[in-house]
């Protein structure tokens, strides 16, 4: 895994912007209308989801080489 996700779910409104702009289709909206990291192993830590999240609910950190 290349990345570590932090979700602040109390902020998430399930608008789906992160889901739509993820180039690797890592994210999904669950039945409760919140974001869920469905395929974390596919994430390339590009940060597109964090960049455009209007509610500051999703954060992606690239894992450092040493931590692998």
């Amino acid at each position: 895994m290349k990345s570590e996700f932090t979700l602040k779910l109390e902020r998430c409104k399930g608008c789906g912007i992160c889901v739509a702009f993820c180039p690797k289709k890592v994210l999904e909206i669950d039945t409760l209308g919140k974001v869920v990291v469905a395929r974390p192993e596919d994430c390339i830590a590009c940060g597109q989801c964090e960049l455009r999240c209007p509610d500051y609910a999703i954060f992606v950190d690239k894992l450092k080489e040493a931590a692998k």
Partner: protein
Amino acid sequence: METRSYEKYFRQNRLPHLWCPGCGNGIAMKAIVQAIEHKEGWTQDNTIIVSGIGCSSRASGYMDFDTLHTAHGRAIPFATGIKMANPELNVVVITGDGDCTAIGGNHFIHGCRRNVDLTVILFNNNIYGMTGGQASPMTPLGKKATTAPYGSIDRPFDACKLAEAAGATYVARSTAFHVQHLVKMIEDGMDCKGFSFIEAMVQCPTAYGRRNKIGEPAKMMAWMRDNAVMKNAWDKLPDDKKTAEKFPIGLFYKAETETYDSAYHRIQEMAGVTA
């Protein structure tokens, strides 16, 4: 997780904000705080956020600076007052398309004309979102609103052209999709001494997108991605390719003229007033 450095500029106890799911205002608000963060010497103590009334203007309540939430359309006069009283302060105005070009239209053009040293960021969502989706002066032709159920027949303002014609010294546009570009445009506007105007196109999925069947927030952002053309490319674009949907983004105009506070200071000296 590494704590994001911009988070300290938000009033954490006020988040999550009240904007609708997928509203672009949140993206634009974050762009503003990131631009302030990049600016050397701009702190929470010497930066003032002034806003009018409307969805966009709720932003001042979430930002941890000295903030002022003012009367509808009157953000620029309040900001002018702050700047005149203390020219050392950095004054940022957050306004919306209705607030800035309808109710505050005159304040806007006269702020530009006087070249007050402000940074004005207009969140353009093409509609009056908060009051239920009435058509604003920036609702595009033919688009539906509660007050234009068959489509708007009022030709919209191009706020950037309006600002330039009225005398603003920095005029730029960006969108909620082009986040880094938006941050850069705001940052450059803050650098500019004088009236800086930045139009941030944001999506309003609830009042505008839904009524016009544009769909989800992500689709509205994809529309921005597909139709925004960088200024350099726009200038080279043949006229037949400049369809109604396409619009230019980037820096449109930049100039240097005496700011209002320095002109006023000059007058004060002539009159022998010691501030």
